[in-house]
């Protein structure tokens, strides 16, 4: 080790890899991963979300999986909990939508209305 800069470089790389172990206080993204979710393609969605979060260095965002969300026909379902506890439920999410959720909702702070389950049900009712 010849300099502090060299140390800082190693630290940055290692901290990124270890970030998953930190307590986070920002957005929490949850993917339904029961049998229904997995068959509908939830795994690539989960992987995309994790990859995007890491790629963009969103250290205060947590991506986790849960079991069945209850609306199996609308899987893959992704829920976003904002730091104040508000919940947004997105349905029929695929990797492309997942990328947009990260970009527009998590980074931009704007809910993507047309992906939400509420919007889907409203449309169906019409």
């Amino acid at each position, binding site marked *: 080790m010849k300099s502090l800069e060299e140390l800082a470089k190693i630290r940055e790389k290692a901290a990124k890899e270890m970030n998953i172990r930190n307590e986070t206080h920002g957005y929490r993204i949850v993917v339904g991963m029961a049998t229904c979710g997995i068959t509908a393609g939830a795994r690539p969605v*989960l992987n995309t979300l994790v990859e995007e979060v890491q790629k963009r260095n969103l250290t205060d965002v947590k991506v986790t999986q849960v079991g069945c969300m209850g609306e199996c026909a609308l899987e893959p379902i992704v829920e976003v909990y904002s730091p104040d506890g508000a919940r947004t439920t997105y349905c029929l999410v695929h990797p492309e939508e997942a990328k947009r959720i990260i970009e527009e909702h998590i980074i931009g702070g704007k809910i993507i209305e047309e992906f939400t389950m509420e919007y889907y049900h409203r449309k169906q009712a019409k």
Partner: protein
Amino acid sequence: MAIRAQVVVCGGTSCRSSNSVKIKEEFDRVLKEIGIDKEILVFQSGCFGLCEKGPVVVIYPDETFYGHMTVADVEPLCREHLLKGRVYDKKVYKEKNKDDIAKIKLFHEMNFYAKQERIVLRNCGIIDPTNIEEYIGREGYEALGKVLTKMTPTEVIDEVSASGLAGRGGGGFPTGKKWFFAAKNKGKHYVICNADEGDPGAFMNRSVMEGDPHAIIEAMEIAGYAIGSDQGYIYIRAEYPLAVETLENAIKQAYEYGLLGKNIFGTGFNFDLELRLGAGAFVCGEETALLASIEGQRGMPRNKPPFPANKGLWQIPTIINNVGTFANITQIIRNGATWFSNIGDETAKGTKVFALGGKINNTGLVEVPIGTTLRTIIYDIGGGIPNGKKFKAVQTGGPSGGCLTEKDLDMPINYKNLIARGTMMGSGAMIVMDEDNCMVDVARFFLEFTVDESCGKCTPCREGTKRMLEMLNKICAGKGTMEDLTELKELALTIKDSALCGLGQTAPNPVLSTMANFYDEYVAHVTDQSCPAGVCKALIHYSITDKCIGCGKCARNCPVGAISGKIKEKHVIDTAICIKCGTCKTACPVGAIVTK
């Protein structure tokens, strides 16, 4: 593929001894079989502290804590939790108290962890101790960088002094002062880490070395810079094979990364570090005996002064600090003395790690600010006494300390209060005892230990402790007299005053302290020839009460055939044949067998 979850399997000695290495391997195998091994990282960390629940597995990012894991649990856990996202209910940690019983708490919100403040144990259970980069990822070696590039040696000593850090090996001598005395001397110096943790029930140093070895290495380098030393030794007992292996690997990595050796950070500072293995003699934890042992001589203490800070290893000025002391240094440098001195109470600063053992629900390691009450440690964090039994006493300071009782439960735990109660902080072992422990027997246990471990150099310790043990044996056998009690106390006080080193001076403490707090138990052994707790074999008799349902289980289990009786009638024990093994008491389904 990006890592989406991490599985941390505890790799501390305690969890390893219940198969955690196999559990880790099983995770590797199952994840590969399911096909998710590329997105999930599995590794072994150091000790999590909640050894009672071992083997422990924690899964991130969910922060789910699983306890009492077995190899057979791994596959269903992977399929449930890591594949389908459902908590594996069978082994997930749940609190025992009524309010929380239905909740599954996050790892850091569990009652055991929430009330702790982790400075010394900050990386234990979090990082992979075999990977130096994980330590660096948690700000590792930044304190060393700061010291070497921005501080003078005097500033480092001033900072450590201002923090109020005191020796965590038990004595509580101000660390900054020790460094200052050594630095005053010109010429070569040595830095030694005392890792000869030897008292029964203590394992906090071991866990730090196994879980966060670089914190010790970095702190020793900082000490080296402060006092002007380029050579350090870690004196560790060979009985800690995993800690030795972890440290050896860490030292090797530190050399590879240029964080040990020549010209560190290009500042011209050099530091070399080596391990010295001890054979496990308790007396070698005493600093002058430790020096003798490193020098290759028989581990025996010598008179002080001269203190090691002036004449230490090979007569060269040396500082010797405990693992627990060194483990605070990097954080003091990084966060500043003021931050550290705001933790603790008015008598002492910082935190202390305690090893909870004995009759307590949550056996393990806890770190709390100095000044925390015993009640918080034993009931809130430790989870109280198992099986609804009553708390009786807690032994602090191991064989050099004494006991605290129910009336001390709300006393803040600090060096001063413990000394005032006739015990000491010691290395931090806390052995909890309930109503089934005989205090005379406890005192005898600790004295047996010091008699074994006495090095034999000075007469008070070599002969005196042996005579004390003989008296205690006599009392436990029901053959003691009231004169013995007087003599026992007198001899204890004499040894305390006249022994050469800390081992001898503190060896009588368990006896003096149990006599002060539980004198009536001693008297009962002598005058009534009875052991109130029902422990001392010579003084107890087994008998069967009217509760007996005549099932015959006791008679079938008795190894010497001392129990007779007809089925469905009350049985009797022939006390002439009975060997008091207690098998019948364990076997009885209705609790009809009692000891008196």
